[in-house]
């Protein structure tokens, strides 16, 4: 029984320039304790998709057009009441954001922010919550936690702030953690620390993690399964090994080929020509077809849908589905 099942999620933004279909029919599921990676370039809908699930899309201009998100087999996150969602968000589903600089309140002491979820969701006494807060800070490797509870965010470095964010997200022992580019703003050596921390906590708490990232390399070592997104759709999904060693969608293949480091020195890097499509215009057929080196006539005409090609591994490429194309 999956922890979360998302079906046909569509989110769009209604602006003066027109309707932008940021997420256009996305379905996926995540099991208890599983790690799912969502990879895509900016504008591919990877963040908007996850924010839609916990009602963090500004409405207007955002609008969830359709879809279901069944959490823990009972609640549909997209249609449940505001108060039901409030009981889940921040308690059973926690989030970490990219920029620990802007996601902490600069006017509040770290301790006060940290224990807020305990006071709200568990009606805990302040004293007890503070004790738990100190434990949580120690758990994520912040020394001198008792004194640090009284510090303000600006007194912490970027990596330390992200640790505080993680402590805050995990203090309610959630079932699902959504981590949106948690290490993008950090240095590589700090990135390694933070990823290891998330992994360790995941094992301790047995929670499921959705890792949103633009970095294939980060995802490859961290996730059990990966969704590759492009232009608001899932292009390929499957176990991590399959996605990396047996890529089926030309976009996934091209993304991996364009990572520097694989080519011999002095060789040109592989590039994907052109740019991602403008999502405020209606795209017929496969949105990648104009950039795809394998595209044929029907690619730009027929609608795409995700279909299983081998057990657990699905792709949305029409040519793979019809002609068994290998990329």
């Amino acid at each position, binding site marked *: 029984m999956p922890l979360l099942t998302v079906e046909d999620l569509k989110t769009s933004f209604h602006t003066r320039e027109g309707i932008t279909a940021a997420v256009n029919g996305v379905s996926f599921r995540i099991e208890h304790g599983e790690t799912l990676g969502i990879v895509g*370039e*900016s504008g591919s809908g990877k963040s908007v998709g996850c924010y839609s699930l916990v009602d963090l899309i500004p409405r207007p201009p955002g609008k969830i057009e359709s879809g279901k998100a069944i959490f823990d087999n009972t609640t549909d996150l997209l249609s449940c009441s505001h108060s039901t969602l409030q009981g889940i968000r921040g308690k059973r589903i926690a989030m970490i954001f990219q920029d620990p600089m802007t996601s902490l309140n600069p006017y509040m002491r770290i301790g006060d922010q940290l224990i807020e979820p305990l006071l709200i969701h568990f009606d805990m006494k302040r004293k007890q919550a503070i004790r738990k807060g100190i434990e949580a800070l120690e758990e994520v490797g912040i020394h001198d936690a008792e004194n640090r509870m009284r510090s303000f965010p600006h007194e912490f*470095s*970027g*990596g*330390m702030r992200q640790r505080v964010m993680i402590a805050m997200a995990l203090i309610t022992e959630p079932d699902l953690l959504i981590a949106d580019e948690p290490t993008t703003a950090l*240095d*590589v*050596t*700090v*990135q*390694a*620390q933070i990823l*290891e921390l998330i992994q360790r906590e995941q094992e301790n708490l047995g929670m499921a993690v959705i890792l949103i990232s*633009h*970095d*294939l*390399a*980060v995802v*490859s*070592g*961290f996730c059990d399964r990966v969704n590759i997104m492009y232009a608001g759709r899932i292009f390929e999904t499957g176990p*991590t*090994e399959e996605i*990396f*060693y047996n890529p089926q969608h030309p976009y996934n293949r*091209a*993304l*991996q080929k*364009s*990572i*520097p*480091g694989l*080519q011999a*020195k002095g060789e*040109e*890097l*592989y*590039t*994907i020509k052109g*740019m991602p499509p403008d999502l405020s215009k209606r795209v017929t057929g496969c949105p990648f077809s104009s950039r795809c080196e394998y595209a044929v006539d029907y690619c730009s005409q027929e609608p795409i849908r995700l279909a299983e090609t081998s057990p657990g591994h699905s792709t949305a490429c029409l040519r793979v589905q019809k002609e068994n194309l290998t990329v």
Partner: protein
Amino acid sequence: MSDYFLEIKDLKTHFPVERGIFFRHEVGRVKAVDGVNLSQSQGEILGLVGESGCGKSTLGRSILQLIRPSSGEVMLDGKSLTRMQGEALRLARADFQMIFQDPFASLNPRMTVLDALSEAMLTHNKALSEQELKPTVTGLMKRVGLSPQYLRKYPHEFSGGQRQRIAIARALAVNPKLLVADEPVSALDVSIQAQIINLLAQLAKEMDLTLIFISHDLSVVKHISDRIAVMYLGRIVELGPAEEVFSNPLHPYTKALVSAVPTADPHSERQRKRIILPGDPPSAMNPPPGCPFHPRCPYAINDCSQTLPAFDSLDGSHHQASCIRLRELEPGVPNQA
């Protein structure tokens, strides 16, 4: 005369930190660049890597005299840039240009591509006439892979990658010999990154540009550079041929850096051991005594906090590092699958 095109000798850039409202007084100095020696031959691409706050951008700007260094010397093609002043420096700037990280901030939103590019040209070549200008700009746009039909468009009409192309064109408009690119692809998506890296590598070759490529991303730097310099807390801790530094790092900091770079390969990612460095880099205002890396270094011994290690190589080659345990440590990244 030396054979090097660019020579940096003991360059220091310190920023004073002041306190007080009525009596401003200096309470400390941020030693952003603290004694950098570097030489580069013409046409060479040097990658400068390091974490945020290590001083790599300040070094880039100090070389180009966008920030005047506190001491030391920068020699370009036999001329000392650090001694140049006023008009002489302004005129000399045609020889060295810079590309910045954020193509959204580095272009004037009220200038069309034509305005932006011709401004750069006219600044250094006043004799250029209207008739000559347009074809030159068109040629430049083609060179960086932009269609000349965009000549009269404004920056907001372009994507990030295209804007970075405009920024590159603007830097190249004056035919510079030295180009400093400060994180030129960090703000771009993977698929666009590759396009810009290819463009820079190709232009550097065509125009015999001496290029300093500053980035925090080791895999990008490894791909484009001939040599790599690794910076930590205002100093260069390791310098050598790109392949060598990557596959055979000498300095413990470089080892940690290389081991922390993830690769897009699930099997090797799961097996490999990372050197996880404790803590964050120390403040550049009061760097630790001795080797600045010793508080985080897994190989540190007592002597490390006493003396600042000199630059040395294992076998007299060009691959050098500043670590007193250079000869004791096993080269390469330990425990790597």
